């Protein structure tokens, strides 16, 4: 007879170890998955986790990609983690990310072909505002009408995708694109470009913003009253109300931060690595960031590491696609499995496992 006994507070040891355990379990399960697909599991795992960093031929290309991919994931995940801690579930970051990119790009393109140095900062602000505004829809509906923010934020992703489609073929389409969908190339217009800052590192402004967000979130969560209120609201909503935490204010704040950060991520992506508004520039970062947030235990430093790991699976996945013919979807399923194992092993940090019958108290 196995029983679970709730720990008075989560075990520190297991909280730190379970992500590693989950990664290890996912590698085993992923290896089985790859073997079922007819690939050598060890070779597949080496291609995904080792080769992007150390392969003599590919590493020089793929190593900088690590920061390129981790940047937006970390930026979005840090924002999401604040809300998740407080029990506020913004799962529509993908939509906020898209809207940030569109609004930011539109703000810049309005001044095309000006060479003013103010354009990029203006776009950054517009991008953050775009994501923020999109997140305010579920926030205000939740505060005013108690509408479920999970469903609203998620449904708005599909609305944003349609707006993106109409931007790419309609109001933001490049007049010089020969009728093809897609905006002007923002990374080639010097006023809007978000270039690699240090050659060979993949570092662009989005990555810098991600690092700043990590530090900001760390200070907020551990030193600031608001961070305390967020944690309290998540752990004991009733106690939080007695302590004077206004739930509505917290909803608006958490969704503001996560929306603005997702919008920023979108803007930096569209001016840098993606280069233009196109129908499918978004590459699902908004959803993967949810996995990153949980994998990082909703802790800023954890998210930093988790973002890098998840970026590695992206790059490794592409490499495995190219080298071993592993389907792109396999890596997506692999990422999903990682989240399953993570949630599963979480039981170790919150509960003690007892064997044998319960003693009569």
């Amino acid at each position, binding site marked *: 007879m196995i029983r679970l006994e709730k720990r008075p507070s989560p075990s520190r040891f297991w909280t730190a170890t379970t992500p590693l355990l989950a990664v290890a379990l996912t590698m085993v399960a992923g290896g089985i998955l790859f073997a079922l697909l007819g690939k050598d599991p060890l070779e597949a795992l080496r291609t995904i986790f080792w080769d992007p960093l150390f392969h003599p031929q590919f590493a020089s290309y793929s190593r900088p990609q690590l920061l390129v991919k981790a940047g937006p994931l970390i930026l979005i995940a840090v924002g999401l983690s604040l809300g998740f801690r407080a029990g506020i579930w913004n799962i529509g970051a993908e939509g906020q990310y898209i809207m940030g990119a569109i609004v930011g790009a539109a703000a810049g393109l309005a001044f095309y072909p000006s060479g003013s140095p103010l354009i990029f900062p203006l776009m950054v602000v517009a991008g953050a505002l775009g994501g923020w505004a999109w997140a305010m829809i579920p926030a205000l509906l939740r505060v005013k009408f108690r509408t479920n923010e999970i469903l*609203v934020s998620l449904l708005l992703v599909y609305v944003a995708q349609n707006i993106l489609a*109409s931007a790419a073929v309609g109001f933001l389409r490049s007049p010089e694109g020969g009728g093809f969908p897609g905006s002007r190339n923002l990374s080639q217009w010097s006023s809007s470009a978000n270039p690699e800052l240090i050659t060979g590192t993949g570092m662009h402004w989005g990555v810098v913003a991600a690092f700043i967000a990590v530090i900001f979130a760390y200070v907020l969560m551990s030193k600031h009253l608001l961070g305390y209120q967020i944690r309290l609201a998540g752990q004991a909503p009733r106690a939080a109300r007695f302590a004077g935490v206004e739930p509505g204010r917290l909803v608006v704040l958490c969704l503001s931060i996560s929306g603005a950060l997702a919008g920023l991520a979108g803007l930096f992506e569209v001016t840098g690595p993606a280069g233009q508004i196109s129908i499918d520039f978004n590459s699902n970062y908004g959803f993967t960031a949810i996995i990153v947030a949980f994998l990082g235990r909703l802790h800023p430093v954890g998210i930093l590491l988790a973002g890098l790991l998840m970026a590695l699976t992206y790059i490794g996945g592409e490499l495995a696609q190219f080298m071993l013919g592993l*389907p*792109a*979807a396999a890596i997506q399923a692999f990422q999903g499995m990682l989240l399953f194992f993570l949630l599963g092993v979480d039981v170790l940090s919150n509960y003690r496992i007892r064997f044998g019958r319960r003693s009569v108290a």
Partner: protein
Amino acid sequence: MEMFGGINPAVLIASLMVASTPILLAALGEMVVEKAGVLNLGVEGMMITGAICGFIVAVETGSPLLGFLFAAVGGALLSLIFGVLTQLLLSNQVATGLALTLFGLGFSALLGQGYIGVKAPTLGRIDLGPLSDIPVLGRILFSHDPMVYVSLALVVAIWAFLRFTRAGLILRAVGESHEAAHALGYKVIRVRMLAIMFGGACAGLGGAYLSLVRVPQWTEGMTAGAGWIALALVVFASWKAGRVLVGAYLFGGVTVLQLNLQAAGAKVPVELLSMSPYLITILVLVLISTRGAQGAPASLGRSFNASS
């Protein structure tokens, strides 16, 4: 209305029923799950897994009915992962449901590798002879494929099950107060596991209806938010089977209408029409929530651990 020039209203209603069936099936399943006090946000993932499982089996065996059977099995198996994680390992239901959706989307794309562009055998309409030939009514009521009738029968069956049977009462008790149900000797975890698997099977059927009847083809991510709309529908319906039917058909009506408007070349941007079902769902959610979450099971989303 000249906008509908050439469109037969009977055909419109009949196609509305076809458009509604996937979300109706998924929402009915989710309603039972939530009635048992479990919030499974993985409907989208279970639907798409059902869509591909059903599609593969139907293509390989040539039998759409077998396809639907395996779609239900596939959906139920996937939901079992959710069940084990949330019920036995007591993980957070919101996060686990999301994980199920993310995993389902990737997993289905993986399974569906070789099936893009393949044609599946589709379900034929049931021919009810003279009944199907009745003008207007015959087209609306008596000339559908079997799954439409299955979904309607399921509405009645679930309503009757929850209202009149002992098992239905136990399920509701578990959803309202798991402590009380446990104290009375009911197996809370077992009831919830069964409910979760039933929900998974229903979502799987709904997904297979998309890939085998509605579209009928396999494309990655083809559920396109249908699972989330099904979740919204349960809230809209205040956890009542009859209202799930009304909601699903209303929603199906909007979908069919906007598709017809697109086809008719209405002077509204295509993107605005395509986003209208989602916008209307949000609007309805807002309207419903202004009068409070009536009928929500009291233990919805809470983990149960007997030893705590």
